[in-house]
């Protein structure tokens, strides 16, 4: 029995190390870009966390809305207070899985992430194209996609609408390292 327990424990260890073929973020950068008539709006967030489970190809992101940094601080206040309402909805998340990734291959691979994006109190199923590049033990994930503000109940007050387009471009640039 003891022997069996030992084997079972060992097996558990191995299995958990297999099932936890996880990657975590070394460096992250989420940028959004909105090109307006009066001026372009750019914001960056470098505190985004993510876990990528390479065996099952599941991925999760957690974005703190308040960590988006704008060049104009007044814009940052408006972004938090009026548009994303970050006191009410402090976080945005994405949970999904990645198709088209082969962990044994080096180089750039084109992949698609399918899952649920939660933002401003709204959850939507989305599909995001991107690339994953394997560099030794690291993975570099890049993606660029559009978000329609109306899809997430983000309304732009009438008087300032000219400054903000109805769609924003989101850019992801992540470096993953084994957990």
């Amino acid at each position: 029995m003891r022997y069996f327990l030992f084997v079972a424990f060992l097996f558990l260890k191995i299995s958990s190390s297999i099932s936890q073929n996880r990657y975590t973020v070394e460096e992250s950068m989420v940028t959004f870009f909105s090109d307006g008539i009066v001026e372009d709006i750019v914001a960056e967030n470098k505190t985004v966390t993510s876990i990528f489970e390479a065996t099952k190809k599941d991925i999760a992101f957690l974005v703190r809305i308040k960590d988006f940094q704008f060049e104009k601080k007044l814009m940052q206040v408006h972004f938090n207070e009026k548009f994303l309402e970050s006191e009410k909805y402090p976080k945005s998340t994405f949970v999904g899985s990645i198709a088209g990734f082969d962990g044994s291959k080096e180089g750039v691979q084109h992949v698609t992430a399918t899952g649920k994006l939660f933002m401003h109190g709204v959850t939507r199923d989305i599909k995001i194209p991107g690339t994953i590049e394997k560099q030794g033990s690291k993975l570099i994930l890049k993606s660029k996609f559009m978000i329609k503000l109306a899809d997430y109940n983000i309304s732009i007050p009438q008087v300032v609408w000219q400054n903000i387009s109805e769609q924003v471009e989101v850019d992801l640039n992540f470096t993953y390292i084994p957990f």
Partner: protein
Amino acid sequence: MKLLLLIAVLFSFNAYGQDDLLKALDSAKEESDFTIATFKGTRIINGHSAETKPKGTLEFIFSHRFGRISGGWYTLYGLDDAFVRIGLDYGITDRLSVSVGRNSINKTLDGYVKYKVLRQKTGADAFPFTVTTMGGVAYNIYPKANSDIEGFETVDRLAYTGQALIAKKFNAKLSLQLMPTFIHKNAVDHTFDKNNQFAIGGAGRYKLTKGTAITAEYYYNVDRIHPRYYDAIGFGFDIETGGHVFQLVFTNAVGLTERAFITETRDEFWNGDIHFGFNVTRTFQLKKDKKGSKTTP
């Protein structure tokens, strides 16, 4: 027992779901956030709010008070008269602001330093309110020459203000503020005024929509000794659009330094001696942050 173990072992392969990934991320991160936008502007009606300008931002603020509405048709409900202050506010750091201004009443030059001592925040390290301290000085350019008034000296032109602005944002809509204020005037007429005066102010704002709010402000002067002066009271409507804040106000005060509106307001609000006016601000970002450096506006 063996079977149970086997099941446990097998189960361990699938012992997580996608949501567990998210939970792992969520539990790893618990930070506290400073409360933002307790008030729309650095002023509520006549006096200061606990807000300071973020680092590197310059605000141009133009305040205008018309004459008494009770003047009726003869003065076009006060529109014939104008009392103004033109000022510039600048954020040296996210917590420290300075300002200079020029008032038409008594041709007063004013300047102040404002510092956020404590900041309201939520999360792991929560704190319930914001405390900003304000120190100001006002210099009357009127009278033009000291000799215009017998015995008048240059020091008599000066007045000082020390103020604590204690503010709490209760929710996205409601913010309230308390303002204990001390004012020292170098020269007063002792028959109806004191050199040192203490006042306690209360103010609030309630947001109607994302860009508009109603505001109210009242200063109770504890050291009032003569019925010639009244407490400053005001109601306002804030409109925020992009880089501008428009504050439309109704108040009995026409001065825009603490000395002027807290200790020298000559009109009685409840008597109908109300002045319509506005504060208009325009914010400019002079210094841009290095990309990615973290700041809290």
